[in-house]
Structure formats: C-alpha cells, structure tokens
C-alpha cells in the first residue's frame, strides 16, 4: 500500500490555480524529488503533503486515510506524529541552543528527553555543538540541527523544502549524505528542490510546471542499483 496518495488535488488562490488536478502516489520508503521552476506549484504541493495546508479540491490519502477533510486540530496532531519538516531557512528558535531546539519538537509531540535529543544530534554529527545557539552555528550546522529536529519523533515521512538552498557545496554534501543514510534506514523522503544535483540523488523525480505534473520518472541510478 502506498504511504501517500494525492487524488485530483487542486489548490486555488483567488484566480490562480497553484495546483491543477494533480494526482500522485508515493510508496513507503521511497525517496522522491519534486522539481520545477519557481511558481510551478512546488511549495503548494509541499504544504499540502505536509498537512500545513488543505487542498481546495480533491483528496489527500495518508496510509489510505483521507486527511483533507479533517479538522485543523486533528491535522496538527496527524502531521506532528507522521511528518518531519526540514526548511530552507532552517527556522531554528534563536534563543534556544541546538539541543533545546530539538527538544521543542519532542515537547509538542510527547515528552522532551535531553538524552534522546543529544542522540539525534549525534546522528547528524553535531553532538559537540549541542549547547551552541543558532547564531554560533554555521548554516550547514543549523540545517543539520533542523534535520535532527525533524527526525526526533521518528516520522514516517521527512519533507524537505530546498534543504540545501542556503548551503555551500561542502555542507550540501553532508546533508545529502544524511538523507542517503535515512533512505537506507527505510525512511520515506520527499525533497522539494530546483537544484538538479540534489534532485539527481532521489529515486524518483517528479517535475511540476504551471500546477501540472509534466514528468514523473524513475532515477536510472537507483533502478540499476
């Protein structure tokens, strides 16, 4: 059974059809890249998948359950339990240190546990910098804290929006390595990007243009391997 399924989803902002009758199926453990120029509907799609927004029309099925009709509160609970978010601008809380930023996610999810949070930082290679404030961390380090925060509640799906958009190449590679490891461990990944290099790492690449899916291809690299 597929993890996530969009059925004829449309999102309309006034006159603009940001998404126009889009259907998409994503399997468990799959690494999907959503690509396309700006204004193609990438962000809208990501928001709908991430349960941060509701579609104007159509259905969103997660584990076979339609979540598009759920109440806001239910949606919040659902998204908190199943999805981890990684942002282009990291969005760390600037007055909390690295480990505290991770713990905030635990706090809203279940129970904060500093030991677990430190382990999550260790997984992204930042254990030594756990007590640093975001302003004392480099961009790449901040993004790794952001990833650790996304991972902490063991979500079924990691949703990353331009995760490398603000990073230099060295840091980009570190982040991609973490994604590869997660993929191997069986975590489902959706990465929204316009960077072909990042997209190339994914198992499957979906291209969006003017709110439509223009192509949906399997990455040969993976089918070979």
């Amino acid at each position, binding site marked *: 059974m597929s993890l996530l399924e969009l059925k004829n989803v449309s999102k309309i902002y006034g006159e603009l059809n940001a998404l126009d009758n889009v259907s998409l199926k994503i399997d468990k453990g799959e690494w999907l890249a959503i690509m396309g120029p700006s204004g193609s509907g990438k*962000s809208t799609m990501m*928001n709908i998948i*991430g349960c*941060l*927004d509701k579609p104007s029309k159509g259905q969103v099925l997660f584990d076979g359950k339609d979540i598009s009709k759920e109440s806001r*509160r239910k949606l*919040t*609970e659902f*998204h*908190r*339990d199943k999805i981890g*978010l990684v*942002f282009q*601008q990291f*969005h760390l*809380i*600037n*007055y*909390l*240190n690295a480990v*505290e930023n991770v*713990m*905030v*996610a*635990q*706090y*809203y*999810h279940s*129970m*904060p*546990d500093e030991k677990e949070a430190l382990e999550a930082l260790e997984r992204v290679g930042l254990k030594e910098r756990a007590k640093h*404030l975001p302003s004392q961390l480099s961009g790449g380090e901040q993004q790794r804290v952001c990833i650790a*925060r996304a991972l902490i509640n063991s979500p079924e799906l990691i949703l990353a929006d331009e995760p490398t958009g603000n990073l230099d190449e060295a840091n980009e590679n570190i982040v991609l390595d973490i994604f590869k490891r997660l993929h191997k461990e069986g975590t489902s990944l959706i990465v929204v990007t316009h960077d072909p290099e990042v997209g190339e790492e994914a198992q499957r690449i979906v291209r969006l243009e003017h709110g439509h899916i223009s192509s949906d291809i399997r990455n040969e690299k993976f089918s070979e391997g």
Partner: protein
Amino acid sequence: MNKKTLMFFRMVAASFIRRRSRMLIALFAVIIGATILSGLVMIYYDVPRQMSTQFRSYGANLILTPSEEESISSEELEKSISLIPENELEGYTPYRYENSKIHNMPVTFAGIDFESVTKTSPYWHISGEMPQNDGEALVGAKVAEKLGLKTGESVSAENSFEITPDTDISLIPEYEIFEDPETGEKHCDHSLDISITGILETGGSEEEYIYVTYKDVEYLSLTKRGYDIVEVSAAAMQDTLKSYTKRISDDVEGVSARLVKRVTASESTVLDKLQSLVFIVTAVVLVLTMICVATTMTAVITERRKEIGLRKSLGAYNSDIIVEFMCEGLFLGGAGGILGSVLGYVFAQLVSMNVFSTSITFRPLLIPITIAASVLVTGLACLIPIRSAVDVDPALVLKGE
C-alpha cells in the same frame, strides 16, 4: 515536576535570559506605565487634602457666635472645639471687643491671641512686629491713619465709666475709683498704656481695630467675660464643615456655629476644578501611556511571528502557544507592575515634598491595583498580536521573506 513542565520553564527562562535586550525594552515600557499609573493616582487622591491645607491661607472658614448669652465662655469654647477632629483643626482665635477712646476718638479694641491669629488669619500683613506681651498693641491701618499712630509710639486708651456690680474692681487701684457726691454712684477713670509694635494691613475691615491681649481688654473694661466671636480654621470641605456647625450648634448650648460661605463655597468650587483637572490629566496621560505599553508589547510579539509559525509546524496547538507567550507577557506585566508601583510612590512623594512640603499619604491598595492593571494591560497587549499570529497559516509565515 515532569519533564514537560521542566521544558516549558526552560524555554521561558531561555527566552528571558537570551533575549535580554528585547525583554528589557518591554519591561521598561511596563515600568514606565506602572510608575505613571501609581504616581499620578496617588497624587490625584492626595490633591484635595494637600490643597485644602493651602486653601487655609484664606483664613477662618467657621465662625462661632454666642446664641443666647452675651458671650462664649471658655468652657463652651473648649466643648465646641473638641467637636472638630484634631487633625483637621488648623487653629482658632477667640475675639473679645471693647470700646475705648484714644485722643478722645472712639476706637474699638479687640483682645486676641497673637499666636493663634497667624493660623486663622495668615494673610495679615504687619509692618513692624507682632505684639508678644501685655501692654503691646497691633493697630489696624485705618485706625492708625485716622489717629496718626505710628509703630514704636506709645498711647493711652482712656476709659471713664460707672462701676456696676459686674465691674471687677480688683483689677484697678483704689485711688482710681471716686464716688459722685450727689448720686452716690461710683465712677472710675483709668487708662491703659500701650506701645504700638506694628500696623496691620489687610485691605479689609480688620484694619479698623486695635489688637491687644485678652488681659489688656479685660483691664480696659474692668469686666471678666467670655468672647464675642471665635474664628476657626479647619481643613475640611464644605459638607464636612456643615456637619460640624450642626453638631456644635446642637450640642453646645449658648454657641451657634456657621460657615464663612465666602471661603467655604469658593473653596469647594475651586478645589473641585483642581481635582477634576488632575483627574482628567491623569486619565489622558494614562490612556496614552497604556497605548504606548501596548504598542511596545505588540512590537515585541510581532517580531516573533516566525517562531509562532515554526512552533505550529512542529505540532503545537494554538492554545499551547498562547499559554507560553502569555506566560512571558504576564510575568513582564507583574514585574513591571511591582517595580512601577514602588517608583510611582517615590515620584508621588517627590512631588508632594516639593509642592506641599508634606509627605504623601501612602495608599497600600494602590500596589495591587497597579500590578493588576499592568498585568491586564500587558496581557491584553500580548493576547491580541498572539491570536492574530496564531491564526495565520504556518506555511505562509515560514515561506515569507
């Protein structure tokens, strides 16, 4: 304490410690607001009391006159005065008038207490000195002009009258009394030598008398009796004074008390104006200050819209965020309120000492009121921007920029 509560306090503490400059700015705004609130309100409540004392410079506002008998005795006076609360009584001066002649011109002498008269008639202008002893006199400017009297001079007041059973002959030497050989009536001619220590100028009818001690008027008239009129100065408003006059007139036989309407009616008019002036000034300044506090708090919250969006994207319910942020806001309000009420008291005291040279009445009730008001204003000022931030879709906030 479970881990969740612990984390809650850890976040709030971090917010205070690591966002010091922002928090100080907000705290500062609350302190200013609370200081102005407690300071101005304290002054507002103290103005009538303080100004009322100033209005005593108009002199007596209550007058006692004998109702049936000729004069007011010392016992009646004491009883009447005891009906006025001591802390409101500024002073009282009994007057006893007697007629006499100087250079064959009729003049009226008034026996007074020279010390208490400075309380009941603070507006007296004296060129020269206030008399201290028996035999010294203060002469009203009109009398002085009429008789050509000057400070430093000595004059004699002469009295010649028939001796009646009322006359206290023990006051004079035997040789001053002589008997009319035809009628058998006893007469006496005696004089009182007084030295003029000062001339009194008031621009009013007080200038028509010569003021001496009670003992001197007694000697002049050779009669012991009470007072003709008593001037009382009490620091109280018209309605309170009215209740005193009623009490005195009812309880003390032989004394009728009435208000000096010119002083009391005008005082309540002017004092009302003054108090309403301070009231509306306080109100206007308070409203504006509270808006100032609110804008500062709003600015501080609005800065954190992104953070609110992020917390929502991490799965926080709207209610969680409101509780967290309000907690910070209310803490600021409380701390600012406490500091402000202390500073406000200091300020009110400063004003009171400078303007009225007396200490302000401390009103303990104002402390909880100030704290409650600043918590309320800060709370409201936080709640509105938090609610609006919470209602915005996190996707929009996080995407923005």
